[in-house]
């Protein structure tokens, strides 16, 4: 779960990382009088806000409120700006980059830092990056912070200040169960290091132990959110074939096969290991809301039984008929029974993914 910048900064602060003293507003008139300059930062869950015009500076209250007027409600890459973070402008001497991520290869955490901050880290050449895997059981050790400080060319004084930043960000990363904890840019000011921006993605599977966190749902479409609430793995795509399959790998493979025949999936819906008819009904409830022209059901019955899935489909249809064709591919345990059940509802079920995919694409008008 991605957090908004202002939420991430609150958490960073709690773990001892200096952040600018800011506050959020949802209305221009809530901006308080200030001296000097402020920055108005659109709170959206997408990168590249700055380039998209979502970050502005203002020198007086009136100017700030005028800018806020423009920013609030603005659309940035499909995300509506509902909140602004107002912060005093900071005195930037130099910008750095720092993050902790989960490193799949080493199966440990990874600390990444660079003396080139404020830019996309992917654009920084490898030799300018400090990268170090951090074992979760031993944690951050002084030698790592030392090595980082040498690599970043810090003075002794700066290196001392860096200790607090690295340890704080490690605390954020581990105690908040983050997939990613990022400061970009990490700004050197006359008063030391400050996290000018903050990005924090909480590991979804750990949310049960972070009940205090406000749930951020904006990264999902309304339909995705509904599926999420029902515990269904669902992704909305931009084609017109509504794919339901069982198992994430098989569902992905179904998308791929459709594409081989020039078809385009409009949904990724993974039924998972279930053959509970209620779940199947729920799945159809989600998918019928998506802007698709054909439903493509692909079931491999292993533990899941084909006939019980088919029963679920039939029940879903009885509840509320689908006003579009359904193409099914059914294979595995109780395959024949499943096909028979579907046939009774006029759904033709194929045995091979290939055949079924061609049929679905044809019906979707792709062939």
């Amino acid at each position: 779960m991605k957090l908004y910048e202002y939420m991430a900064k609150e958490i960073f602060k709690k773990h001892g990382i200096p952040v600018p003293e800011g506050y959020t507003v949802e209305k221009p008139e809530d901006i308080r009088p200030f001296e000097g300059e402020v920055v108005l930062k659109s709170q959206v869950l997408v990168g590249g806000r700055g380039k998209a015009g979502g970050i502005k500076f203002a020198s007086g209250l009136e100017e700030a409120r005028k800018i806020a007027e423009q920013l609030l409600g603005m659309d940035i890459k499909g995300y509506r700006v509902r909140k602004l973070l107002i912060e005093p402008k900071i005195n930037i001497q130099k910008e750095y980059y720092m993050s902790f991520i989960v490193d799949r290869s080493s199966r440990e955490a990874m600390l990444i830092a660079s003396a080139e901050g404020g830019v996309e880290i992917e654009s920084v050449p490898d030799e300018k990056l400090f990268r170090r895997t951090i074992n979760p059981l031993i944690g951050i050790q002084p030698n790592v912070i030392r090595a980082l400080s040498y690599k970043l060319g810090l003075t002794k004084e700066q290196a001392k200040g860096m200790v607090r930043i690295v340890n704080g960000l490690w605390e954020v990363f581990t105690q908040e169960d983050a997939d990613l904890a990022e400061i970009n840019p990490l700004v050197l000011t006359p008063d030391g290091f400050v996290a000018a921006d903050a990005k924090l993605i909480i590991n979804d599977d750990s949310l049960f132990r972070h009940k205090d966190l406000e749930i951020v749902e904006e990264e999902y479409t309304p339909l995705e959110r509904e599926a999420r609430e029902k515990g269904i793995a669902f992704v909305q795509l931009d084609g017109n074939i509504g794919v339901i399959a069982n198992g994430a790998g098989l569902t992905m493979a179904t998308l791929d096969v459709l594409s081989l025949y020039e078809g385009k999936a409009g949904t990724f819906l993974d039924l998972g290991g279930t053959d509970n008819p209620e779940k199947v009904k729920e799945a159809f409830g989600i998918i019928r809301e998506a802007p698709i022209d054909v439903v493509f059901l692909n079931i491999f019955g292993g533990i899941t039984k084909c006939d019980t899935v088919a029963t679920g489909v039939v029940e879903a249809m009885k509840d509320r008929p689908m006003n579009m064709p359904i193409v099914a591919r059914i294979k595995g345990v109780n395959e024949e029974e499943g096909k028979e059940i579907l046939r009774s509802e006029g759904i033709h079920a194929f045995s091979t993914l290939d055949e079924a995919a061609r049929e679905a694409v044809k019906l979707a008008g792709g062939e």
Partner: protein
Amino acid sequence: MAVLVDEKTRVLVQGITGHQGRYHTRAMKEFGTNVVAGVTPGKAGELVEDVPVFNTVRDAVNETGASASIIFVPAPFAMDAVLESIDAGIKLIVTITEHVPVHDAMKMVSYAKMKGTRIIGPNCPGLASPGKAKVGILPNTVFTEGNVGVVSRSGTLTYEIVNSLTEAGIGQSTTVGIGGDPVIGTNFIEMLELFENDPDTEKIVMVGEIGGTAEEEAADYIKEHITKPVYAYIAGRTAPPGKRMGHAGAIVTRGRGTAESKIRALESAGVKVAKIPTEIAELIAKDL
């Protein structure tokens, strides 16, 4: 022979009294697996499918000599269950549980390494050596004995592929679902090494998907160390970037983890990559 599990494996089921635990205890027994014990705290003395239940893993190991464990414990308690088994001296732990927090996964994998224990998973279907034993939730019906080793990040897709192998008369030595999470106990490389050293495995099937660089690293490893022919399928060619495709690990982020990159790497390592899942059986059949 087969890898990791065979007829001598003595299996312990952690979370045996839950719905999944019960169901798969029976299924594993039907497969021929020697399931010797179950653990559910507070349920010592019960029997599940004639398997005695203990309060702790240590009790179960002491009483039954269990050597491998399968975890059906809910995600919030899965790490503790795994650590309990590691400390009780279990050397193979198959973690079926999905939605294990990734920081828990990192910790348990590190601890297992320190203690010389192998973890399969989490979020995996486990493994099966047909004719010998199954420690997992894979369907009993799709397998047949043979000498193709299968390793996969996915569940149902694996059953589909194994089933198509079986239908084509191509048997399997061991099939391992290593799990769809970003951090897993045993990865492609480690399984490839096991298959390479297994005299009963002649060919290897690798089923990958988008996310991470495990397939690319496996490709490098294959180039250097694997002499047996490898066949692969990669799911997620058409998955949009930034979207998590069901599995926690199946996501293309910041341009990394695309199917194209994986397919390219595997092909350049001499791996035959199928375009659709069932094509794997055809590719192998052609080579026979």
